[in-house]
């Protein structure tokens, strides 16, 4: 007897021998990025063979790729149930659990998978990531090294190894491994290959860090906006070696890039670029300059608000907020499409202890859909929503200049404040991005920034309490 929830016609049209073909088709569709069509075939295959671990595993992948994480978790869980000795099943379940923040269970299944098939690099890679999320960085590095040994040409383990090394402060090796970032699946190259080849018999090579007094260097503002802010400090250093340089960046980054390079050198599309001889992404400059913990260039401030725009926003804020109150800017969520957003972002309400501070006025610089949370803010401190009026980073910098402090999660605004020397409290997830290093409450990248870290995954109460306590202490 079949699954009673499926129409009997399905069974009439299928024979058990169709199963493998369905699975092959589904696998192909998954590879082609069509999880919905794959899911259709997998549902049929599971109807024919409800305990087939391959079908269940693939179905879990289809659910995961379709964004149905609950279903994915159930399907992977069922796969492990029917095939407890199947390493791939444990590996899939490990990853699904990790993404849900269930790190204990993820670790158990990851270790089981590694024990069952210790020679599969993808299992060791996933296990390394679980250790990173658990902030057991030495183990994360260990497992990623093993994965790299098994598959030296696969970029994922190299990149995770880089994250672990950089987070630990092992910059020289970390920068080397970090170079694998552009080879990760789905990541476009920093410069289109056609542009590198254009008009040259040999593609233009990347810059090796040596002086180029008479050649032109192309710098690319790569990665996220926060990275652009962080690495923009290297542009004057690059200029000393290569006086003739141009920068390519997205329109959003231009207010930042113009300040450190002069507006005429900035380009927002590949077509407008002048000819160049070598190239380098901004995120590659720390490696070329051999940056170590002791040599991070931190001449703060290296970004400034436009005086006219700052005056306009100050006048606006003076009208919106009473005098004599400490003005604290707020950003509680980053771009939702960021890979680690569910860990780094919080809800406005989780900042509640901040709302009870006396003589404090809150200024929201939050943009995007989470701005809607302001409509449900009823804290004691007045809160002004400026997010709706922010057009670009020039506005953000102008507002930051009028604040006494910024309280932010790990977002580009926090980097901007750090680069401007605005006192800033950054709230970090348990396993933070590599740049915030381990355990310390300060950061060599931005001397005016104080870090408040989660002490257990997903729990914001502790760092928020610590941040508020430190603000109270500073006001004494």
């Amino acid at each position: 007897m079949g699954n009673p929830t499926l129409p009997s016609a399905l069974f009439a049209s299928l024979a058990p021998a169709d199963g493998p073909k369905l699975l092959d088709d589904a696998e192909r569709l998954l590879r082609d990025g069509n999880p919905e069509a794959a899911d259709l075939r997998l549902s049929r295959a599971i109807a024919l063979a409800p305990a087939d671990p391959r079908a269940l595993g693939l179905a879990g992948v289809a659910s995961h790729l379709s964004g149905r994480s609950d279903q994915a978790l159930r399907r992977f869980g069922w796969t492990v149930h029917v095939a407890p000795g199947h390493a791939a099943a444990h590996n899939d379940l490990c990853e699904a659990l990790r993404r849900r923040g269930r790190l204990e269970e993820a670790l158990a299944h990851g270790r089981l998978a590694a024990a069952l098939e210790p020679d599969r690099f993808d299992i060791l890679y996933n296990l390394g990531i679980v250790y990173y999320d658990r902030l057991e960085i030495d183990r994360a590095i260990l497992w990623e090294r093993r994965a790299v040994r098994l598959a030296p040409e696969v970029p994922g383990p190299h990149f995770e190894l880089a994250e672990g090394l950089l987070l630990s402060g092992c910059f020289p090796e970390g920068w080397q491994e970090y170079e694998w970032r552009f080879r990760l699946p789905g990541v476009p190259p920093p410069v289109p290959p056609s542009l590198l080849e254009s008009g040259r018999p040999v593609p233009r090579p990347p810059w090796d860090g040596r002086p180029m007094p008479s050649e032109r260097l192309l710098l690319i503002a790569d990665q996220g906006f926060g990275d652009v802010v962080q690495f923009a400090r290297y542009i004057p250093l690059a200029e000393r070696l290569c006086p003739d340089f141009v920068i390519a960046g997205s329109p959003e980054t231009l207010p930042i890039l113009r300040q450190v390079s002069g507006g005429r050198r900035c380009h927002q599309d590949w077509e407008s670029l002048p000819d160049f001889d070598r190239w380098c992404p901004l995120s590659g400059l720390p490696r070329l300059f051999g940056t170590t913990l002791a040599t991070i260039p931190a001449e703060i401030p290296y970004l400034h608000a436009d005086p006219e725009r700052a005056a306009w926003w100050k006048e606006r804020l003076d009208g919106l907020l009473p005098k004599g109150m400490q003005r604290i800017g707020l950003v509680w969520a980053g771009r939702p499409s960021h890979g680690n957003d569910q860990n780094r972002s919080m809800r406005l309400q989780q900042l509640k202890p901040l709302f009870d501070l006396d003589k404090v006025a809150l200024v929201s610089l939050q943009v995007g859909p989470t701005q809607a949370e302001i409509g449900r803010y009823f804290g004691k401190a007045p809160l002004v929503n400026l997010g709706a009026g922010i057009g670009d980073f020039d506005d953000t910098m102008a507002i930051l200049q009028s604040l006494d402090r910024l309280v932010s999660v790990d977002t580009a605004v926090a980097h901007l404040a750090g680069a401007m020397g605005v006192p800033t409290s950054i709230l970090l997830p348990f396993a933070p991005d590599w740049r915030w290093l381990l355990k310390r409450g300060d950061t060599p990248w931005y001397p005016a920034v104080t870090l408040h870290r989660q002490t257990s995954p997903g729990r914001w109460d502790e760092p928020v309490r610590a941040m508020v306590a430190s603000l109270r202490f500073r006001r004494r």
Partner: protein
Amino acid sequence: MPPLPDDRCGCGSGLRAVRCCRPTAVEPPSAPALDRIEARTERAADAFDRGDAATARRLCLKILDEAPAHADALTILACLLQISGPAEAAIAVLQRIRHLRPDDLNTTLDLARQLLRAARLPEAQAQARNAVRLDPGNPTSHAVLAMALTEGHQPHAGEFHYRQALALAGADAVTLANLAWNLKLQGRIDEARALYRQAAALDPAIFLTWLGWAQTEEAGRGLDTASRLLARARRIDPGHPIGGFEAALLGRQGAPEAALAVLEAAVGLDPAGLLEKGRLLDRLGRHDEAFAAMVAAKALIRQQGQGYAEPEASDLIARLGGFFIAPRLRLLPRPESPAAGAQPIFVTGAPRSGTTLVEQILSAHPAVAGGDELPALAQLVHRLPRLLDSPLAYPEALSELWMGDQRDGLDRLRDEYLRRARKLVPFRPGNRLFTDKMPFNELHLGLIALMLPAAPVVHVLRHPLDVVLSMMSHNLTHGFQCAADLETAARHCARVFELVGHYRREMPLRYLPLRYEDLVQEFEPNVRRLLDFVGLRFDRRCLRFDKNRRYARTASYAQVTEALYSRSLYRHRNYMRHLEPVIPILEPVIDSLGYSV
């Protein structure tokens, strides 16, 4: 559906609908018919003069069935209807006469008075203005307009016209007493008292003079004097229903049982009496009976024609949400020049949420004048399309601000608001701020933020179930008359709450949410927070708001003369069974505010 030929008109005039409010074309009467009509008109007039109302009415109906536009017959019928009602019919007939004879002063005045009686204030005011236009030398025209303005929350303008009437006709007891009531509404208790004394001396036999004087003394905290004056009023007209006020007075004097006894002895309580009874029963802990009295009062209020104008409310709120969105607002200009003179503090919130208390605290500060429930913003909204020369309604008319010749529009709107508001505010020397605490002004937060971006907006919040319960225990017209029923009050509160959230998401506001419960439980820290927010130094007088001699002219005036009390906190818990129907409506608001059910 068109009326059938013999259907009587719904207005109650006694005429067929097709000869009254839903007229159809009528052939002109023939010559013999004309003679018959004229003869009937004379007989109707004779009957009216003899006091034979039934004959007069029967004849008028016959005449008007044949000649619906016969002005004399309409006039006689209007007189009869003004005497015996229904009021709606009297108004309908008077409007028809006015249409026929637009320059007839008496008809215009009668119409204005009838509209006033029916609480149709904007229409009453329009007709009273017409009367003044027709004859500015007529004291009655001024007196009627004064009444319309006074009742329509414009007592300052009303005072002007009472004084015009007195200057034109000399002092008479009724106009003096009316002026005294007007001054009482402005919080000028001492002047009002002096005028009542003068009016009573001129004619001591007018019941309303003594009643109004008693109410003035009660407002001025002279409760014993008020009792004495009320006794005097009762001697003049023992049959006049005054139970509601007497009970309120006894309640304030700490005798709720006696107050209740007064109301229970009264026959056929009006809505005010029933609501007072409800409040007294609540104080005595008899909650089921209290709620029953409130429900009965609201049923009467609805019978009188008051009810939530839900289609209008939901339409306006939807359009406000659609207009005030961040991308559009970024393109709007800001006021070009700063406004001079005293600036407003908007104390917003649902009625009965604590706005009067907040205003009383603020106006105890020497820098703040208490403006009370100012109609200025609503008037501005009404006039906004004309001010911006727009063919669109509010809020869409604000689109004119994109036009090159309307770039100063926000300055003009702001100045018009300030001009209207300042006329109504009783300023004292040193006042540089004034409060505007019209409930539900938060509906217009977007407009406030555009034209007065630096004006502080204090949004007083209270447990929504307490708010709607308290709205049930008072007769309120705010918020499209939503308080006429429990569920409509809840629906309107939820709608407005949602809109406020929208404004806060879409635009920068100088906005402070202030919980009534916090204010009651942690008074001084919250008073300090409030003063900080509006930009004032702390002043200890604000902690003794009950000593603020200012008379708050709203339903909460009695409470704010008492020291802070907490018996109003979470009162809804005694009424959960009765409030059950509105819990699903208010639950999202309750959750958002962090309260519990």
